[in-house]
């Protein structure tokens, strides 16, 4: 997903300005000569300068303003791509009550099916993989993952 350099540069320029404004408000409670806002301000200036240079350099460039590649052409592949961020966000939102194992199986299953894996093997592989990964981390490394719906049968 390519954006014209001048647009990207412009966005970064705005971020730089925002950073400067945010660092200006940082008080210096200590006796140190350079307070917490010093370093951020320097970085803000650098960001503004470099992104300005980028914008200036690329303003005339023969580059399309915005290109979406192949994947945006079909709804299926758009779904496949968007499933990554959306799937992760939903996962994080619901993993507490639903539990890691059910949630992961759901996520994997969804991603498999959208990417042309047949449903029955998809379910089987999803369950097997999630159980293996869970065991490695829970039994092997003692990482506590939420049980959620499986709370009554936890091991």
């Amino acid at each position, binding site marked *: 997903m390519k954006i014209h350099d001048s647009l990207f540069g412009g966005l970064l320029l705005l971020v730089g300005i925002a950073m400067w404004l945010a660092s200006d408000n940082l008080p210096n409670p200590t006796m140190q000569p350079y307070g917490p806002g010093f370093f951020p301000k320097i970085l803000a200036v650098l*960001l503004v300068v470099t992104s300005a240079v980028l914008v200036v350099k690329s303003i005339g460039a023969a580059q399309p303003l915005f290109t979406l590649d192949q994947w945006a052409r079909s709804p299926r592949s758009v779904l496949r791509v968007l499933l990554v961020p959306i799937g992760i966000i939903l996962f994080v939102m619901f993993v507490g009550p639903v539990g890691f194992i059910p949630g992961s199986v759901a996520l994997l299953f969804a991603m498999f099916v959208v990417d042309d894996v047949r449903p029955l093997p998809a379910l089987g592989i999803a369950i097997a993989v999630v159980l293996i990964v869970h065991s490695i981390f829970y039994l092997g490394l003692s990482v506590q993952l939420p049980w959620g719906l499986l709370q009554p049968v936890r091991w």
Partner: protein
Amino acid sequence: MFDAYLQAVALIFQPSVLMTILIASVFGLVVGCIPGLTATMAIALFVPMTFYMDPIPAVGAIVALSAMAIFAGDIPGCLLRIPGTPASAAYVDDAYEMSRKGQAEMALGICLVFSVIGGLFGTAVMMLAAPAIAEFALSFGSVEFFWMAVLGLIAAAFIGTGRPLKGAISLVIGLSISLIGMNNPTGLPRFTFGVPDLLSGVSLIPVMVGMFAVSEVLRYMTGSQRQAAVPKLNLGPIFAGMWRLAVKYPGHVIRGSVLGTVIGIQPGSGADMAAWMAYATAKKTSKEPEKFGTGHPEGLIAAGAANNASLAGAWIPALVFGIPGDSVTAIAIGVLMMKGMDPGPAIFLNAPQNIYAVFLVFVLANLLMLPLGWAMIKASTRVLSIPKNVLMPIILLMAIVGAYAANNTFFDVTIMLVAGVIAFLMEENGFPIAPALLGIILGPMIEDNFVNSMIKSDGNLIGLIDRPIAAVLATITVAIIAWFVLGGLRSALLPRKTQTTNEDSRASNHGIR
């Protein structure tokens, strides 16, 4: 020193450590071998597991993993014309053409054997140079470390990437991310936007997993989904003829190894840059340059040695100054810092056995590469046939759990996602992400040393350059910046057709990916 080496041997040769190294090696081989999965992704996925290990097995695993992955990337290059990792891209044409001519086993043998030779050479340089430089670095104070870190970052952004402007922007982005939180000399929360989870800053592991694993998954999802058919392998003996080649082209072996080590030392440029430059140098110094690209072993010899040599070279500035030579060492330094083992001349003095343990693991990993690499070559057909549409979601799941495991919070998974999306968009638009990673890791080092230096000099900026070493480092830094800024101004003001050569646009990225 001998005592320390003995202690190091005792540290390494324990069953649990050796088992960890073995598992990490196999993991590295498998991930490196599969195109679309990179060496840094392998490390990013493995690191959360090292969280629960002692520092030596953790670092040993990373060293072994990276060495194996960089070699394994050559295998699909020979068989499918698709590099398994970017470090193998420079010579993929020659490797593939050799396979087509029926010389697959020679191509693979060259990649394996000369990777080992390059790796051992780099290790030898590391073993000799690092303690010597550390001796010198003992006289470093906060001012020198400040300039060293700045110099390292500048070099990484401007020189290491081949794209100075976007590299610089990427660096500033990384440094800005390192500002978030309370971990600054004044303890005042910065840029936390009222989110309590951000008070301790953006955690390194989720960012890393996002940058190197999630972004690759996104890249796969948005790319063309073709899975290349793996040809049937009828390999002859892999190690045959290697000695003859080494005797025929000693120059390439040496030049490749030296060049690789030096490029590894240069912060921010890693195995892929090493391979490209070694390939180009081999072509220039060859007696038969016209044969390059048609299935000629010379380029493979030089570049195969270079990319593995660079791995060891990268550890020299990392161990001595805490400044990573490439993305792998950037991650390793992050891991060491999390375990309270800050790299720097102090370790050489107080706990040298830890450093020697790293050296020994390098030797061990490079030697292990021979049998394990051979086995991987034999198993490659099966590994390369694993369907990507099943593999990639599994990688994503491992990434999620890895990001969670560091601090037992799913907020980190959100951080991972944000980092992954940003890294993906950055790379799609030509911004290298290695400088950002270095910025995130070294930002605190720069600020802390700056503030300490200012305290020592009572706020007087002259304090930054009134020590000789600091003044020299400062001069070099300013010179590099001036070189690039003036160069940029010159090309902007003089009317000139701007042309990126093939070399420039292909040797695009930064440290290893």
